[in-house]
C-alpha cells in the first residue's frame, strides 16, 4: 500500500508517493496552469508511472497548498505550514527554523526540532519576494528563471533596490538596465532585497537564529543566489534539501501515512 501527498500551489503542483515503510517511491513537479484538476492528475500520474503502480494501490491521499480543497479523494487537507514542517523534518532532521518561499507566499516556521510547528509567520498583503516576484524580475531582465539563480556572481557594488512591489520593482529594474547597470549587480540587489524582507519574517518567529538549525524549502530554494543572500542576512548557514519544491507534498504524504498507521 502507498501514501500520496499532493501540494497544489499557485505555480506548481507537486506529488510525492511513499511506500508502506515511508520511503519515497517517486516525486513529481508539474506547472499548475489554469486548470487545477488537470495539474493534480498529471502530477499524480507522473508518480504512479515512476513507481509503476496503479491508482487503486494508493491507500490514503492527503492534500496541501492553496488548492488543497480541490484534490478529490483526499482523506484530509492540511495546510502547507504543517506539511512543510513534516517534510523538512524527514529530509533534514532537527530543523528548528524553516523558510519556505513558494509561488505566491513566503513563510517562516519555528519548529521544535521534531517536526512540530511552534509558531509561524507569513508574508502580508502582497507577494513581494516570492516565486511570482522572481518570475517578473526574470522577465524584466530577459533571462530564464533558472539562469537567474547564478547571475549574481561577481557583483560588488552593493546595489540597493528601493521598491519590493512587483510592479514598481519591475520598472526599477528596467530603469537600471537602461542606465547601463550590469545584470549581475541588479540580480544581487534583488536577492538582497528579498533576503532582507524574508529575514524580517524569520525574526518574527526566531529573533536570534544563532545556534539554530535553519533550512529552506519551496521552489525559490533552487535559487542559490537568494539562499546565499538570505544566509548572509541572517548570518547563518541554511540547509536546502535536494528537491526543495516537493517538501510540502512529502509532508502531506507523511501525514497520510501517520493517519492510518497505529
Amino acid at each position, binding site marked *: 500500500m502507498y501514501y500520496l501527498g499532493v501540494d497544489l500551489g499557485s505555480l506548481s503542483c507537486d506529488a510525492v508517493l511513499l511506500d508502506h515503510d515511508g520511503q519515497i517511491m517517486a516525486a513529481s513537479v508539474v506547472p499548475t496552469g489554469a486548470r487545477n484538476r488537470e495539474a493534480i492528475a498529471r502530477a499524480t500520474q507522473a508518480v504512479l508511472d515512476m513507481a509503476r503502480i496503479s491508482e487503486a494501490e494508493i491507500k490514503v491521499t492527503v492534500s496541501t497548498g*492553496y488548492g488543497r480543497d480541490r484534490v478529490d479523494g483526499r482523506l484530509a487537507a*492540511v*495546510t*502547507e*505550514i*504543517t506539511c512543510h514542517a*513534516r517534510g523538512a523534518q524527514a529530509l533534514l532532521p532537527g530543523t528548528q527554523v524553516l523558510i519556505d518561499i513558494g509561488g505566491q*507566499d513566503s513563510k517562516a516556521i519555528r519548529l521544535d526540532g521534531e517536526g*512540530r*510547528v*511552534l*509558531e*509561524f509567520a*507569513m508574508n*502580508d*498583503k502582497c507577494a513581494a519576494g516570492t516565486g511570482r516576484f522572481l518570475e517578473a524580475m526574470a522577465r524584466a531582465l530577459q533571462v530564464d528563471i533558472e539562469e537567474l539563480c547564478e547571475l549574481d556572481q561577481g557583483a560588488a557594488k552593493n546595489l540597493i533596490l528601493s521598491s519590493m512591489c512587483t510592479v514598481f520593482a519591475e520598472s526599477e529594474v528596467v530603469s537600471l538596465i537602461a542606465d547601463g547597470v550590469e545584470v549581475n549587480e541588479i540580480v544581487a540587489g534583488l536577492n538582497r532585497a528579498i533576503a532582507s524582507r524574508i529575514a524580517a519574517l524569520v525574526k518574527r518567529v526566531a529573533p536570534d537564529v544563532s545556534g539554530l538549525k535553519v533550512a529552506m524549502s519551496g521552489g525559490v530554494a533552487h535559487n542559490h543566489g537568494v539562499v546565499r543572500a538570505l544566509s548572509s542576512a541572517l548570518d547563518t548557514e541554511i540547509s536546502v534539501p535536494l528537491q526543495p519544491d516537493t517538501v510540502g507534498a512529502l509532508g502531506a504524504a507523511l*501525514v497520510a501515512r*501517520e493517519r492510518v498507521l497505529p
Partner: protein
Amino acid sequence: MKQYFDDAVSILEARLRDNYTARGKYNLELTRLGQRLYSASHRVALCGVCAPFDLLNAMGINSCFVEFLGGFLAAAGSAGPFLEEAEQIGFSAESCGFHRTAIGAAAKGMLPVPDVVIATSSPCTGGVAAVEHLAHTFGCPLYVLAIPPDDSEKNVHYLADQLRSMVDFVAAHTGVTLDEDRLRDAMHKTNEAREAAIEVYDLAQRVPSPVKGIDLRAFGLVMPLFFGTETAVEILHAYRDEFAARLEQGIGGVPGERFRLMWLQELIQFKHPLIKMLERDYQAAIVIEELNNIYWDPIDVDDPYVGLARRAIAFPFNGSVDRRLKQIQKLVQAYKIDGAINPCHWGCRQGTGARGLIGQALKELDIPVINLEVDCADSRNFSEGQLRTRLEAFMEVLGSRPGRRSTN
C-alpha cells in the same frame, strides 16, 4: 434608508414572535435604533465610540458612534460604493474602513442627518477627525470630549466637567434639556444593565461555553448604545436566560467544543465563512471578544458625571497600552483561552501599534496568537484563501500542542 429600516423592523418583529432568541431581540433593537436615526423625526447625535450614550438616551437623543454605522453598512454588504466615494474625495484607501464607509455614506446622503456631533479623543484620533469631517459635511455643531489617559482625580473631574458642558451643548442645539429624574432613572438602568452583563459574561466563561458564532458579536462595543434604557436590561436578561438554559440542558455553543478562542479588537464585519469554518472543522468557539467585558464600576446615581468619566477613562483602548494588556491577560485566564486571533484592522494605529506588546503579553501566558491582515469593514481587500490558510495552520498548531489530540 427609512423604508429599509421600517421593513426590517417588521420582518424581525415577526421572526421574534415565531422564535424568540436573545440575538433576535438584540438585532431587532439595533434595527429599531436605525429606524429612529433615519426617521427624520427624532433628535440625532453622531458620536465617537466613548460618548456617554446613557446621558444622551436620558435626554431622548438618538445616538450612535460613526464606526457603528460603518460596521452596519459593511455587515449589510453595502460598504463598497461608500468606501469608493470616500477615496474619491481624498481619503487614503489605507485609512480605517469604518471611518471611510461612514464618510462616504455621508457624502452620498446615506447617513442619518445629525442635530449635533460629539467626537471623543478615545479610542483614536482618526475617529475625532472623521466625526469632525461629518460636522462639516452636515454643517452641524461639534463638541469634542477630550478623554484623559489616566484616572487621576484631576483628570476624572476634568472629564466630568466636560460631560456636564456637553449636556449643556446638546441642550442648546436641540432645545432638549436633561431632567434630573430622568438622569437618575437612566443611571439606575445603566447599573442594572451592568449587573446583567456581568451575569452574561460569567455564563460565557463556563466550559463548554454557551456562546456560539456571532451571539455576542461586537457586544461590548455596541451594547452601550442602549445604556440608560430598559431595552439594554431586556436584551441582557434575554442573553442571560438563554445561556443559562443552554448550560442547564448541557448544550454548548459549539458542539463538542475543543478549542476556546479569544478575538482581539473587533470582528470582521462583512460576510465571510471563517468563523463557521473554525466551529465546523475544528470545534473552535470564539468565547470572548476583547471588549466584551465590564471594566468599570457602578455609576453613583447621586454623582453620575464622575462615574461616567471614570468609565470613559477605563475604556481598554484609552491611555497606556498596559491597561489593555492587563485586561487581555485577565480575560485569557477567566475564559480558559487556548489561542487568540488578532485581526489587526488596517488603518487602525491603536490596534496595529500594540501588536507586538499583545503578542508578548500572551506569550507570557503561553497563549499562541495569530495576526491577520484585514480591514474589518472593507471586503475589497479580503483574501479569504490567505486568511483561511493562516487560521487553519493556527488551529493545527493549537491541535499539536502537548496534551491535545492532533488535528493534523
